[in-house]
């Protein structure tokens, strides 16, 4: 096993990885940009090293600098977390070339799965269901004609894409050429790769993904599925495990297909195979994420497996320490992504300073965060502040405990989606498990914040004034001659 691991990340995931390293008695090294000096992950690691760059994000993408810090601090491996360099094949290569271990898959697997067209073809070749699709040949007319044969609606996607960038739904043949062009230029801008393709768009699809672990020698196991159908603009906001009301036979097929893909790719370490599940029960390969997922805690909660520990063991050459028979699930877990954004105003990003943080505590609650009171929330990084993960004996209990936990969670000083998430989880269709990726758009009106009643509004106004020192001076300091002058005027 490793003796010291550098965590090439920040925020909640750096804290998450540091926790497992600590539990296993492995020393940890963290990195931070000066903008992040007060972040919790700086204190969560054994030693923290400042990294520099023109922007905080650029510093976290500076592979050379990060590897240098790892060497200088005597680390023997690098954990990339998610985002930043986690799915960068060149980084994985450079880490290995420097004599350190990369805690993740091999560079060729990252490269294969990072290309949507290549990975789709690979999946198809190995018997994993894929949606009918058409690849552009450079001849836009031929592309439109071929796409029309699949039928509309179609989904245009960037081959190098992710996070919804370069993606759009095309409902009519007349829109295809223009939308493909727009997607291509967006893909060129974000990923420096303008290749796009079109595939059948499944209406009201569910997003089901399977956690896999591979040993790199064709051995692979799954840790069952997660459902991530609650999305906004292709970004997940609520995830759960197991999937809601999934037919057990279908679950076996989907998990089996994921293992088949991982095994065929001689996949090493943790990965996630994502599928689209159509209302008719058909499922299609979407993509494989070659890293630890944001939503991995829901799987940990129902399986009792520490996925970061498994990642470390595999990367250290111990192979798979679990067999498929060892993996069983109990209960249900739901994760909510707490973001600095304004749900009442188009989900625009919010900035501010964390003034107070009150977190509900229970064995069944994980609040994954890298927050400290006083910390500034800026647009330097992703708007996700934390994840609230709640376990229950079954889905109903997990949902009701999640709503309670969201109501008990106090994070003041920056606008967040906490109240919005509580409305999502409490929605009758969520409760019924009637999920699809258009859920939040379909229910937008019911999910909007209701008006508070008149008394609550008046009470809030009074409470705001009672929190204002100038107002208190007006109330308390005059006009009686014996009124105290008080310490306010200093």
């Amino acid at each position, binding site marked *: 096993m490793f003796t010291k691991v550098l965590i090439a990340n920040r925020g909640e995931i750096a804290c998450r990885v540091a926790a497992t390293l600590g539990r296993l008695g492995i020393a940890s090294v963290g990195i931070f940009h000066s903008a992040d000096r007060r972040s919790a992950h700086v204190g969560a690691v054994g030693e923290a090293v400042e990294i520099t760059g023109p922007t905080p994000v650029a510093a976290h993408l500076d592979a050379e600098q990060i590897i240098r810090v790892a060497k200088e601090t005597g680390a023997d491996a690098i954990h990339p977390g998610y985002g930043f360099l986690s799915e960068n094949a060149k980084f994985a290569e450079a880490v290995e070339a420097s004599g350190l271990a990369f805690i993740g898959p091999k560079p060729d697997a990252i490269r294969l799965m990072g290309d949507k067209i290549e990975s789709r073809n690979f999946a198809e070749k190995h018997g994993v269901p894929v949606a009918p699709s058409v690849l552009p040949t450079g001849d836009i007319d031929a592309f439109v004609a071929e796409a029309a044969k699949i039928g509309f609606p179609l989904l245009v996607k960037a081959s190098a894409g992710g*996070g919804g*960038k370069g993606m759009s739904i095309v409902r009519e043949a007349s829109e295809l050429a223009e939308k493909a062009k727009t997607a291509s230029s967006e893909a060129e801008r974000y990923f420096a790769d303008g290749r796009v393709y079109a595939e059948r768009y499944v209406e009201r699809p569910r997003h089901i993904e399977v956690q896999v672990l591979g040993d790199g020698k064709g051995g692979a196991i799954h840790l069952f599925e997660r459902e991530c159908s609650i999305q906004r603009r292709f970004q997940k906001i609520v995830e759960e495990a197991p999937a809601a009301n999934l037919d057990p036979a279908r679950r076996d097929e989907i998990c089996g297909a994921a293992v088949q893909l991982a095994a065929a790719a001689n996949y090493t370490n943790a990965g996630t195979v994502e599928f689209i599940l159509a209302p008719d029960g058909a499922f299609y390969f979407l993509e494989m994420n070659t890293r630890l997922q944001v939503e991995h805690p829901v799987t940990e909660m129902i399986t009792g497996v520490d996925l970061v520990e498994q990642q470390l063991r595999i990367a250290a050459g111990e192979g798979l320490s679990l067999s498929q028979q060892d993996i069983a699930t109990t209960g249900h877990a739901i994760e909510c992504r707490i973001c600095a954004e304004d749900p*009442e*105003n188009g989900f*625009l*990003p*919010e*900035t*501010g*300073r964390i*003034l*107070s943080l*009150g977190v509900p505590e229970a064995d069944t609650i994980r609040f994954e965060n890298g927050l400290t009171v006083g910390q500034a929330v*800026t*647009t330097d990084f*992703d*708007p996700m502040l934390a994840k609230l993960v709640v376990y229950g004996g079954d889905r109903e209990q997990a949902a009701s405990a999640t709503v309670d936990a*969201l*109501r*008990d969670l*106090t994070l*003041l*000083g920056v*606008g*967040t989606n*906490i*109240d919005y998430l*509580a409305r999502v989880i409490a929605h009758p269709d969520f409760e019924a498990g009637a999920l699809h990726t258009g859920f939040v758009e379909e229910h937008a009106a019911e999910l909007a*914040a209701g008006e*508070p009643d008149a*008394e*609550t*509004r*008046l*009470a*809030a*106004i*009074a*409470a*705001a*004034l*009672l*929190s*204002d020192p*100038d*107002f208190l001076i*007006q*109330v*308390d300091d*005059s006009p*009686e001659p014996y009124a105290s002058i008080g310490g306010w005027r200093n």
Partner: protein
Amino acid sequence: MPYQLMLDGERHSVEIIARRPELVLEIDGRRVSVERLGADGGVVSLALDGLPFDFDAARDGETIWLRDGDGRTFRALVEDPIAAAQDTGAAADEIRAPMPGSVIEIVRQPGETVKRGDTVLTIESMKLQTNLAAPRDGVIAELLTGPGDTFGKDAVVARLEPVEE
């Protein structure tokens, strides 16, 4: 002078009617008694006409954050009564950034005539692109940012002037 207070974007006017024996406020014309039950450890407790309320509260300058027992968050801004009185209403001549970010593209240059709703510049924040439009017909008088520049929330990024006939 009445207090002006913004609560979740809506303006409210509050006047102190009586301080003792009990605090009486007139909020938007409605008279209410406010009993202070405590303000400790970030919790403000009060009774409004006898009805009890607890709020988690935190203050950052003029902005006060509140969260009630039902998990509803409020953001209040208690305005300096003097500054509020000096507001000249020039807002429509300015284009302000709705969020912090950076300038991606200047679409219309100073001196160009624009119609209400025309995109003047494109900004990016957290990987999200947004077009900022002219709030009314006019001529771009001044751009206060250029491509790549960063700005904070509510920063003035451009100014308009009337079209000369």
